[in-house]
């Protein structure tokens, strides 16, 4: 549906205009404000070397990303930060999408011998320590069409209070306007055989997306240990799915379609990191209730990631650093888990040359300990000049079992190349 893409592009244009026209100068002092406009433009291409499985899917997709950022700060230290974000994708109109990553007002001040901070508006919050997946991190929805690694997050409207002192940091969040997870359209790769139609999304709560969600976290640093304990109560970020056989036509999608269902969940999270010398030991664990398992049945479950990283600095007397990552991902639901991480071993190597171009390379594997399947990843990044940088990525999916959740992605390994311009 080109019209959908067009509407999104238009929206993005309006937002961008609103952002850029407002300040008279791109940066510097304007009156009593400090204003600053910056951002990133990127051109990206993805190639899928293996034959597509489903009708409409192609073997190549190109596009661009625009991510401008406006920062305003007055003399009292009040900050307004706005970051609209837009991607155009030539193959998949669902991957062509706009998101307001950030649009918040930030106030802060002293409180006793500590400080307080209030963020009002759309923001992103990151909680966690491990690399293989972001388990504890739950405040923001996943922008899944960006990358199947589920690490790109969308903006979330919130009121966010932080209070910190010698005894640690307390964060309290009130959220509403639930964001739906993005899914590839029928022409996109990295999708299931049945397409997800977000227009048919259902909510368990009668308030729908307006249901008030709450989250809190306490974190502290004690010597070598950094830890956090968090709780989330509200609308799930991860949906379960219903199958609809006669819903396809109105949305223009081939029937049947999947429709996402967002249940109310409660999640307790724990994250900890022990930093000693060149070794970092990490743990993330959650207990989630209210969510449906793969069979569609409500099941309270625990999941954790345990692992660490070790860095060899100045490898072989060169300028390079080599970091080894190893993590064990476990979801006690096993085959009833709704993700790839039911019992997996993650291993990765990151080589940073520390040259003028900042060249770095990461290779990783996520290996299923119960089955033979593995997901391999490669990332290469290099600076071309002060303003331009290049990155190359590849994902390979091997030996996926026929009964696996990800069986439909077995042909969707890809190579991607991006050129970024930073302004």
């Amino acid at each position, binding site marked *: 549906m080109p019209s959908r893409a067009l509407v999104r592009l238009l929206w993005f244009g309006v937002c961008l205009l609103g952002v850029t026209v407002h300040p008279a100068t791109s940066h510097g002092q304007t009156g009593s404000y400090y204003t600053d406009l910056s951002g990133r433009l990127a051109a990206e291409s993805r190639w899928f070397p293996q034959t597509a499985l489903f009708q409409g899917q192609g073997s190549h997709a190109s596009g661009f990303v625009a991510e401008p950022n406006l920062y305003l700060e007055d003399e009292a230290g009040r900050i307004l930060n706005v970051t609209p974000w837009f991607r155009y994708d030539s193959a998949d109109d669902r991957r062509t999408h706009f998101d307001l990553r950030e649009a918040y007002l930030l106030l802060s001040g002293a409180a006793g011998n500590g400080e307080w901070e209030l963020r009002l508006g759309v923001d992103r919050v990151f909680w966690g320590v491990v690399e293989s997946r972001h388990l504890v991190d739950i405040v923001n929805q996943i922008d899944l069409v960006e990358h199947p690694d589920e690490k790109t997050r969308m903006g979330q409207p919130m009121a966010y209070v932080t209070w910190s002192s010698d005894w640690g940091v307390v964060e309290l969040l009130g959220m509403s306007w639930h964001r739906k997870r993005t899914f590839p359209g029928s022409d996109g790769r990295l999708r299931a055989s049945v397409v997800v139609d977000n227009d048919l999304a259902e909510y368990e709560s009668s308030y729908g997306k307006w249901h008030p969600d709450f989250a809190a976290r306490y974190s502290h640093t004690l010597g070598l240990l950094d830890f956090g304990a968090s709780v989330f109560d509200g609308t799930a970020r991860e949906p379960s799915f219903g199958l609809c056989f006669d819903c396809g036509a109105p949305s223009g999608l081939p029937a049947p379609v999947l429709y996402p269902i967002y249940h109310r969940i409660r999640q307790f999270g724990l994250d900890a990191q022990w930093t000693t010398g060149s070794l970092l030991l990490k743990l993330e664990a959650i207990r989630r209730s209210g969510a449906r398992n793969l069979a569609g049945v409500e099941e309270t479950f625990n999941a954790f990631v345990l692992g660490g990283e070790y860095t060899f*600095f100045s490898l072989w007397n060169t300028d390079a650093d080599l970091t080894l990552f190893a993590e064990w991902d476990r979801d006690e639901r096993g085959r009833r888990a709704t993700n790839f991480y039911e019992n997996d071993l993650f291993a990765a190597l990151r080589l940073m040359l520390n040259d003028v171009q900042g060249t770095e390379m990461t290779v990783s594997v996520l290996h299923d300990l119960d089955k033979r399947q593995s997901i391999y990843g490669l990332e290469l990044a290099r600076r071309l000049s002060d303003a331009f940088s290049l990155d190359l990525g590849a994902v390979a999916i091997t030996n996926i079992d026929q009964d696996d959740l990800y069986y439909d992605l077995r042909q969707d390994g890809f190579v991607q190349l991006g050129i970024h311009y930073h302004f």
Partner: protein
Amino acid sequence: MKTDQPIRPARVRPARGLRAARFCLLAMFFLPGMPSQEAWAGGPGSPASPADPGSPPDPSEEKGLQIARDARSQDEGFGNFSAGMTMVLRNKKGQESVREVRVKVLEAEDDGNKSLFVFDQPRDARGTALLIHGHKDRPDDQWLYLPALKRVKRISSSNRSGSFMGSEFTYEDMTVQEVEKYTYRYLRDEPCGDGLDCVVTERIPVEKGSVYRRQLVWRDKSALRVWKVEYYDRKDAHLKTLTVAEYRQYLDRYWRAGSMAMVNHLTGKSTDLVWTDYQFGTDIDDRDFTRTGLRRVR
């Protein structure tokens, strides 16, 4: 080379920040008293330790140690300051690459200093920030802020040797600069800098793993500011020379260099550092050096 570039945000890939961290560590070396005060890593507030009881009462060694201690004590009590740092990396062919960092330092009374480094350039690393809580009796705590993910990550503060990012500074240069980390020997008096009356001392790293066998340090007698350092490698070959210039005095007491040039005689590469916008007695306070404050960095 002014760091008057406006502060801007960053959209950085996560790992980029790690490179930024290494660079910031370098900055940490220079900042605090710059090479004029070797004691910084331990904090200018740290008291001079008593002389090693095992050291022989060699007058040239005692004089060398006293010079190092005097230099350190001169930088105590600065409170806080902020500054901008521009670094130009130059290879053999003369091709240049620029790095820009903004720095804030808060002096602590009974522990190591707190420091904050924010990257402005290269632009792909813009907004990346490093927070360091220095400690006298244990390794520093370090947190890295990665703006693309809005992630604050605790990182290793392990000491490292070897240069980085093509620059001519090693980790050893920046991390272990406490008075106690060297033995000293007074060598001679001779002019240095711009015709100043100077004293030349030799300092030998105590740590066996050092990449240097020894360093020669030129200080002017009046203020004990470092004007030149010669670095000799394990084979005693003259590896690098650091030249310091454009000193200015702040708060009628604290001397800070405006420029530093490190030349590597073996590779022909060089790195120039220019300091700008030194401000002492600013409204910097503890709130600028917290994990939550790190997320507000601009």
